[in-house]
């Protein structure tokens, strides 16, 4: 099909012909087109359906403010709903589909809503659908939900890549129209680092849409030359296709660069979009202005568009919406459109100007003091009815109507912090005012300066002022400088259905009803009618709605107020904010030095924070994880096992006050710990709850190595720095994390020493006498490699932890396995570790849940009263020391094979089962292959005094009730003989 509405001229490349599809129809376009201009060129006016009444909708604008012309772009997993046809840069093979219609765009079943529109007035749903109560969920809401929404998602994962980046500059210029280009030239020539960003793929803004001249050039040629000069400057960064979406605190701007949306397919590894965080002391907003409509009867038909948009389509894209066009305006700008279209051979049915004193034209008829009172045309405009001053009416045949109600400055970014726009009477519009974001200034039409020369001038001045440039401003080219005065004309009186917000179907009547029902503050109006809540965020409707509210309230517009604009300026794909942080890369993955060895051994891994830890090591023939774990536990307790505990936090504490420092951060004492010894340390938060536990090994008078749990390594280090810098600023103590530097392995079991003696160099005596329980020190292994040895035990067995520099961890683990063969050594994972610590009754993560005190955990005696340590005072509060408070106990089912559940609650042996009679809960539950029984740990009211008591463990969530007995938490070797062996 040929492009019947294509005109001469324009800034499209007629040598390249692109083919695209809309709703399955094959159509052609040129590069330089948008989907919108291409559709118009092919005489496609009907593009979508409105949100509520499913009225036929076409294009209203030629820019990102478009409320109506939305499509589903691309197909499959790349389907992109609600995409504005006006912002889609044409590419060969583009596919788009209309949305929010069924079964087809022309025949939409839900268009029936339009017939009942009178019943679907603003907020009607708050007043009905209440009876019978059950029907809301089952009937009404599902219907509403299906009808609502616009486009649909593919439900497939987005296959594209997205990047995030950072840029810095002296001046960020937002918008590359006359003001922005002039500002960039001024700042760039002065040598400043400039970023010039514009949402359009062609820089120039309105200059590309107008026929007048700048200097001796056409407006668009001048823009092209300016861009050429700017791109030759190394200190200027031009960012077309980049929308500055928000102004955030302290000069940080969010900007979205669409690097791939204009391509049929993305090159491998290239991002579709980039989220830039732009850091700048100064920003100059040159975002231009948006033309505002006039509301009148049936003003929403396809073909009824903004006058300036018709001009853009004609001058930039060489397209007319129809061969026969009428204009409805309240200002001279509407006449510009008529003149430009006429000059391009488009038939002007008439210019309808509400002003009695409107300018005349020799080229076409001007109906002065006239108003458009109605329009006709089912799927597109066919004619408009005009009422003349003398009361008579005229009918104008036309396929398009250009509407111009004046211009609203694009103040959006000035409101992103605390700024409130102020009403400018002469312009009859809001202009930036109040508190702008620090460092931001505004130039050109965005600041209410509507002439081209004024824009050029304020752009140059704005840049100079922002950068404190002293040298003279560059000479400005001559350009149109028509004074602008607007007499507002918001809507045609007496109309029945005149659209204010076209996407959400909010009419003049809805606004008036909102007032009638008491929803009179702007925020109430917005929320009650949904005015301005659509995907265009009311760029073409908010001010009009406000004006109507002001009129019915008998107030001035500023008295009624303004709704403030929030980021983003235009909608941004959620994936763009996520960038590369998705899938496996969502968070960094931390691997231990022997990870690759464990992988070879077929280990099953588990996420612990960002770490991957071996959970268990399945052997051939083992079908259930329990078999592997039971074996690992049995073999460790019977002979020897090795566990990678590199992930434990390690903090190097040095300085002459190191011991005193540990005294402060630990509840128990460290001052007297001998060099060469290790001690268990209990750390409280200042509120008295247990924060973390670990060990501190004294390697020298002034040198400790502290361990933390894997989960709390970061927060404990932060806490220690807080105490060091903020509470004890004069202590001589230095901290640094060494978690990553050392690969550390627990070697546990009766044969642990025998195995280590084959690893540790012979000159080091690690016999029980020379290296007793809780000893520590530096040794060398495997013929001279420096290592650290700690005789500590989490499993309750004779155990050591040995640490070597990380790069040798893999080799040491392999060596331990090789040397351990004679002892049938077994590597064990976190599951076996967990089983053994429960058997031993050690509290861990699930007991240290942030709400337990030392007393709760049976460690009350560790909290020294004789020294100043974090948390000791608040841990004494009355409720925290109540005798019937929770205490840690062991839990054993009466029938060994009965499973018990962590998270189950404990109830007395008899009596009601409900929250009021809750006695406590199970924190940890495992199967002990040593005791051949399920066992657990729990926190029970006054538990330590109730050992031997029978209770009911209930977990209604998992349909479980088990009879259990409270026992000592130390299931295995309560005297601790093994670990001292």
């Amino acid at each position, binding site marked *: 099909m040929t492009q019947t509405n294509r005109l001469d001229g324009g800034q499209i490349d007629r040598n390249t012909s692109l083919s695209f599809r809309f709703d399955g129809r094959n159509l052609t376009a040129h590069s330089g087109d948008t989907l919108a201009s291409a559709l118009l060129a092919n005489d496609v006016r009907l593009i979508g359906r409105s*949100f509520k009444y499913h009225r036929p909708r076409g294009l209203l604008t030629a820019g990102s403010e478009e409320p109506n012309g939305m499509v589903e772009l691309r197909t499959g997993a790349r389907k992109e*709903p*609600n995409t504005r046809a006006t912002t889609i840069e044409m590419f060969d093979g583009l596919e788009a589909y209309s949305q929010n219609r069924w079964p087809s765009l022309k025949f939409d079943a839900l268009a029936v809503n339009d017939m009942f529109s*009178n*019943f679907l*007035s603003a907020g*009607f749903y*708050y007043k*009905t659908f*209440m009876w019978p*109560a059950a029907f*809301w969920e089952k009937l009404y*809401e599902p219907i509403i939900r299906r009808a609502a*929404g*616009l486009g649909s*998602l593919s*439900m497939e*994962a987005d296959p594209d890549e997205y990047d995030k980046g950072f840029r810095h500059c002296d001046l960020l210029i937002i918008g590359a129209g006359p003001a922005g280009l002039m500002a960039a030239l001024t700042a760039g020539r002065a040598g400043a680092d400039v970023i010039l960003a514009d949402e359009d793929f062609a820089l120039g803004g309105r200059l590309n849409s107008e026929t007048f001249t700048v200097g001796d050039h056409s407006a668009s040629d001048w823009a092209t030359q300016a861009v050429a000069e700017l791109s030759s400057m190394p200190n200027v960064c031009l960012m077309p296709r980049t929308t500055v979406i928000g102004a*955030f*605190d302290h000069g940080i701007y969010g900007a979205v660069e669409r690097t791939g949306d204009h391509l049929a397919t993305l090159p491998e590894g290239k991002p579709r979009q980039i*989220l830039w*965080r732009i850091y700048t002391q100064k920003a100059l907003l040159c975002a231009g202005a948006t033309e505002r409509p006039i509301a009148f009867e049936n003003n929403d038909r396809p073909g009824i568009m903004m006058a300036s948009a018709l001009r853009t389509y004609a001058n930039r894209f060489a397209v007319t919406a129809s061969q026969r066009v009428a204009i409805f305006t309240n200002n001279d700008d509407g006449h510009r459109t008529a003149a430009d279209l006429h000059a391009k051979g488009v038939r002007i049915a008439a210019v309808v100007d509400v002003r009695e004193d409107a300018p005349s034209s020799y080229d076409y008829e001007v109906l002065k003091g006239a108003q458009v009172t109605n329009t006709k045309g089912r799927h597109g405009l066919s004619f408009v009815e005009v009422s003349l001053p003398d009361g008579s009416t005229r009918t104008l045949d036309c396929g398009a109507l250009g509407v111009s109600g004046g211009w609203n400055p694009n103040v959006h970014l000035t409101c992103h*912090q*605390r700024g409130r726009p102020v009403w400018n009477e002469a312009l009859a519009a809001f202009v930036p005012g109040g508190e702008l974001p620090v460092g931001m200034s505004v130039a050109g039409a965005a600041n209410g300066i509507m002439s081209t020369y004024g824009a050029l001038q304020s752009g140059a001045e704005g840049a100079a002022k922002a950068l404190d440039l002293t040298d003279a401003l560059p000479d400005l080219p001559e350009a149109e400088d028509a004074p602008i005065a607007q007499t507002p004309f918001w809507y045609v009186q007496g109309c029945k259905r005149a659209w204010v917000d076209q996407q959400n179907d909010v009419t003049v009547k809805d606004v008036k*009803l909102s007032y009638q029902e008491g*929803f009179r*503050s702007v*925020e*109430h109006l917005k929320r009650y009618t949904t005015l301005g809540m*659509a*995907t265009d965020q009311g760029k073409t409707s908010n001010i009009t709605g406000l004006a109507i509210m002001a009129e019915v309230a008998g107030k001035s517009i500023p008295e009624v107020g303004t709704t403030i604009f*929030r*980021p*983003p300026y235009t*909608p941004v*794909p*959620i*994936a763009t*904010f*996520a*960038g590369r*942080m998705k*899938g*496996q890369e*969502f*968070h960094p993955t931390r691997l231990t030095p022997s990870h690759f060895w464990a992988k070879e051994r077929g280990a099953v891994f588990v*996420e612990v924070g960002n770490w991957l830890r071996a959970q268990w090591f399945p052997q051939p023939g083992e079908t259930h994880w329990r078999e592997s774990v039971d074996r690992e536990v049995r073999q460790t307790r019977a002979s020897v096992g090795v566990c990678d505990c590199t992930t434990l936090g390690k903090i190097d504490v040095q300085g002459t006050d190191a011991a005193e420092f540990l005294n402060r951060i630990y509840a128990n004492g460290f001052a007297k710990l001998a060099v060469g010894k290790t001690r268990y340390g209990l750390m409280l938060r*200042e*509120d008295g*709850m247990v924060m973390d536990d670990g060990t501190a090994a004294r390697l020298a008078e002034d040198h400790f190595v502290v361990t933390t749990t894997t989960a709390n390594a970061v927060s404990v280090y932060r806490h220690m720095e807080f105490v060091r810098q903020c509470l004890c600023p004069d202590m001589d103590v230095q901290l640094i994390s060494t978690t990553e530097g050392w690969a550390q392995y627990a070697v546990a079991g009766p044969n642990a020493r025998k195995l280590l003696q084959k690893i540790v160099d012979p000159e080091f005596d690690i016999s029980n006498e020379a290296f007793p329980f809780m000893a520590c020190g530096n040794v060398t292994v495997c013929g001279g490699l420096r290592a650290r040895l700690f005789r500590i035990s989490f499993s309750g067995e004779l155990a050591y932890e040995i640490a070597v520099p990380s790069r040798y961890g893999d080799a040491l683990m392999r060596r331990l396995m090789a040397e351990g063969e004679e002892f049938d050594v077994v590597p064990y994972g976190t599951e076996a570790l967990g089983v053994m610590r429960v058997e031993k009754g050690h509290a861990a993560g*699930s007991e240290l849940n*942030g*709400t337990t005190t030392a007393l709760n955990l049976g460690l009350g005696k560790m909290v020294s009263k004789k020294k100043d340590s974090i948390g000791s005072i608040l841990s004494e*509060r009355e409720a925290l020391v109540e005798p019937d408070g929770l205490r840690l106990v062991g839990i054993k089912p009466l029938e060994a094979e009965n499973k018990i559940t962590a*998270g*189950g*609650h404990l109830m007395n042996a008899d009596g009601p089962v409900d929250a009021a009679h*809750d006695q406590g809960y199970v924190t940890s539950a495992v199967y002990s292959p040593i005791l051949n029984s399920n066992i657990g740990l729990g926190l029970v009211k006054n538990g330590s005094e109730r050992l031997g008591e029978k209770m009911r463990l209930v977990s209604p*969530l*998992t349909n479980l009730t088990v009879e259990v007995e409270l026992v000592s938490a130390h299931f295995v070797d309560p005297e601790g003989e093994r670990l001292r062996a």
Partner: protein
Amino acid sequence: MRYSGFRVIKEALTGHKGWKPVWREPEPKAHYDIVVIGGGGHGLATAHYLSKVYGHRNVAVVEKGWIGGGNVGRNTTIVRSNYMLDGNEPFYEFSMKLWEGLEQDLNYNAMMSQRGIINLFHTDGQRDAYTRRGNAMILNGADAELLDADQVRKEHPYLNFDDARFPIKGGLVQRRAGTARHDAVAWGFARSADLHGVDIIQNCEVTGLRIENGKCLGVETTKGFIGANKVGCAVAGSSSRVMGMAGMRLPIESHVLQAFVSEGLKPVLPSVITFGAGHFYVSQSDKGGLVFGGDIDGYNTYAQRGNLPVVEDVCEGGIALMPMIGRARLLRMWGGVMDMSMDGSPIIDRTPVEGLYFNGGWCYGGFKATPASGHCFAHLLAKDEPHPVATAYRLDRFQTGRMIDEKGVGNQPNLH
């Protein structure tokens, strides 16, 4: 005027001329039995229950701006009662029951939609914690279900099961949970309170509390002094500012919580979903927008706006959990100022000042609590004793060590 489908039809046929303002615009009287400071959800709900349940009609609600402009006007609309601790669960379950009958109670359709909520878990430790919580819910008379990964996949096939950094291991579900139309909640309570005689006074900022010999006599406002036998403060977000007028320091910090909404989409999400390995929760509104949020920005602020790092953090969580929303566009972001309390739980209590009562510290759990908060605060104001389900929300609990700390992060508000 009663609302009903018939009424809507009747008005439609007679040009909608009969619709009256939903609330009056009265001038303040010199004195009320009870003045409630704050025309947000909780203040309006308090007025509704005071007048309808406890028979107090000589009541005023004073609001510095427009009613419903507090956090009830800017939240993610989630209603649930899936709490773990004894101090909380009975209260939120009470609230849930009030939600379930709210439309009929108010004769206003707040579009309470019991679509369910699922809290996903990704580790055994999380599973155990959710098991404990789910059991607590059931033992308190609420509903809860534990799903394994396969069951989750059946209900939410579009979640990331194949390329997840933190694989989904299951979820805790509360079927009765859901969402409600947040603005309508405020308007419904306001309309009912107004119908029961309560004066709702907008654009009336409280500038001071008149306190003599330890007794609160009323409030100084931009519309003059308003006397009252009792003054109830329900201004979460600004609690420290208002109670500061009574010389009180609170166990509260003000923080901003950002929320986000996408462009309208055809239905994709069947329920509310909460990610367990990142800061992201989401539901879909009746209009089709994905309404989502995450963590607070984390620094003290009274500004109703946040910053980019949290926006990115939330979206990273969203894409990690449900990569199919990647091409849905974020339409609007906003921030609400939260009363972040020292244990993450609220306060509904008398104060050392006679006749002055306090309701606040709601953190980001305020919306779901709206009916119960209003009911319990009304009970306290009317009877001078706490409602049975709100006895734990005492002001002095931090002094006695009776914190209600669901998260177990202690006295650091920005971690709750």
